[in-house]
């Protein structure tokens, strides 16, 4: 029984990182109604940023986190102008295809550079011992960083001018434009922010698990599940959704082989989509 509890706690720690990744996805959807299908590829690039920092430059692993935020932001702004800008007001089909085509390009480049063999970045931290169980240090630190970044995002969105502008554009772009907000710049800023979150969550995931160029797909599906659980377009819900997913994964792991987890996630995804289209945490149904 205690083993299950330990597994659940560990799941929640990892879930906070999933939540961080999903916040990037949900932010972009909330502001510009674009489902960012480059999400998985961005997470993978975040993972390789860690690999680059630790294995090539020999720097400490967590030094990669601020770098990832900054680099991911720049990357995201560039990506906005390449793939998202022209499709924002077009049918959803077009934005899905445009971001997906960028996903193919990025994965293709990644495959050519790193091949598809697995990589592992060893990060050693002392763990926390509790009875017979040890909580891995990396899991705790990753969860703490994820929650801290989520807090920073909250401050940015609700306590700064640019955050107010982002929320205004998300609410009604035309009205925001009429109020003198340069909406195109705000959109590119929000897109950059979303990509930065995905990128840094990739960096954090890479401190926890081994990865390949193709891992992005699995984490992208997780992010979708999380966003749907938390309600699309709701960053706070995404963090809670991530923790919920981690909790469910943690609770399921002792009882079934790991390879069945994606099927459980998918079933959950469909149920959540059909039964709670606005997310399980949206209390206000206005």
């Amino acid at each position, binding site marked *: 029984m205690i083993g299950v509890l330990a597994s659940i706690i560990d799941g929640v720690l990892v879930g906070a990182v999933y939540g961080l990744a999903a916040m990037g996805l949900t932010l972009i*959807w909330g502001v510009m109604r674009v*489902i960012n299908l480059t999400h998985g590829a961005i997470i993978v690039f975040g993972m390789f940023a860690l690999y680059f920092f630790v294995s090539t430059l020999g720097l400490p692993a967590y030094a990669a986190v601020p770098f990832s935020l900054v680099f991911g932001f720049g990357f995201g702004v560039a990506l906005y102008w*390449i*793939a998202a800008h*022209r*499709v924002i007001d*077009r*049918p*959803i*089909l*077009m934005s*899905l*295809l*445009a971001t*997906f*085509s*960028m*996903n*193919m*390009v990025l*994965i*293709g*480049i990644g*495959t*050519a550079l790193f091949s598809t063999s697995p990589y592992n970045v060893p990060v050693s931290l002392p763990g926390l011992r509790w009875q017979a169980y040890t909580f891995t240090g990396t899991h705790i630190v990753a969860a703490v960083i994820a929650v801290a970044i989520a807090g920073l995002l909250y401050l940015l969105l609700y306590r700064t001018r640019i955050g107010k502008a982002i929320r205004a554009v998300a609410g009604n772009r035309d009205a925001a434009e009429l109020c003198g907000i340069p909406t195109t710049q705000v959109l590119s800023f929000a897109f950059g922010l979303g990509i930065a979150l995905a990128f840094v969550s990739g960096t954090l995931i890479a401190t926890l698990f081994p990865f390949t160029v193709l891992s992005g*797909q*699995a984490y*992208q*599906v997780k992010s*979708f*599940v999380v966003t*749907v659980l938390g309600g699309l377009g709701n960053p706070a819900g995404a963090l809670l959704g991530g923790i919920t997913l981690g909790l469910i994964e943690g609770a399921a792991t002792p009882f079934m*082989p790991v*390879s*069945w987890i*994606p*099927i459980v996630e*998918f*079933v959950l*995804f*469909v149920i959540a*989509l*059909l039964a709670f*289209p606005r997310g399980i945490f949206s209390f206000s149904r206005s």
Partner: protein
Amino acid sequence: MIWRRPFPWLIALATALFVLLPLWRGSVQLRESLLLAAVYITLASNLNLMIGYAGYVNFGNIVFFGLGGYFCVYLVNDWNWNLVLSALAAGIIVSALAFLFGLGILRLRGAFFALATIGVNEAIKQFVTNFEPWGGATGIYLSLEAYAPLGGPRQALWIVYFMLVAVMALSLVASYAIKNSKLGLGLLAIGENEDAAAILGVPTPRYKAIVYSVSAFLPAVAGGLYFFKSGIIEPGGAFDLTLSIEAIVMVMLGGHGTIMGPAIGALLYEEMRGTLLTIPTFSHFQLVIAGLLLLVIVLFAPGGLMGFIHRHWPASRKFFE
């Protein structure tokens, strides 16, 4: 009369070329490349029913192909059914599954549906990987005896090729028939504006489930024939998301919503892919090039090749539908 219109003749001509060209040249290499083209055309045409007509992006369209392959190979291998029967049974089973499933997930609109289809592919791939009767991760290998009823492997390959060409022709005919039917009009209306269509009396949930199921049938049959020909089926090859995406590129390249477009797109893409794979520098960048191609089409020519032709020569609409 349907035979007065040029389009059915074009389908007949294309099919005849597919049948006669490799026979005339006696070339196995040509047959293999046309076989791949026939599979691509089947996938692209049926995907077009969803993307082009109803405006629903199905990222997991390859799941039909892979599942059809699994059912067919399983029936041939473990139950010793004959090939035609197995392929048809695979088509019917997959189609029925798609219908049931479609009733559920087609309640989702636009982006949500697209997300769900990615999930469907991944979940079914994981399920099959864990499913022992289908060989789990190693898959099913056909023994040579499976080819005996068709007169040995060499002859079997030709027979399978002709069957695949027939499936391809049926796909084009189905695209044509659906576009000119009440169902097709309803789907096009859904593609334009689903709420308006529903208000005007189009039974949208049923039509969507029907087209989802119809677009599953022929790819499943083609999958059955294709994996029978390969002699091996395993989860990675059967549920290859890349092929799913390539099918979308084909549809967009040729022009979604048209009948010939996806077929032409598939042919062009097959040629391009073949060329790129043989140039060493590009063989690693196949995905990158397909992605860039898709991006350029989406951003600058959303109508694809057919859209371009129709815009510049409006008279061509009569001949190339």
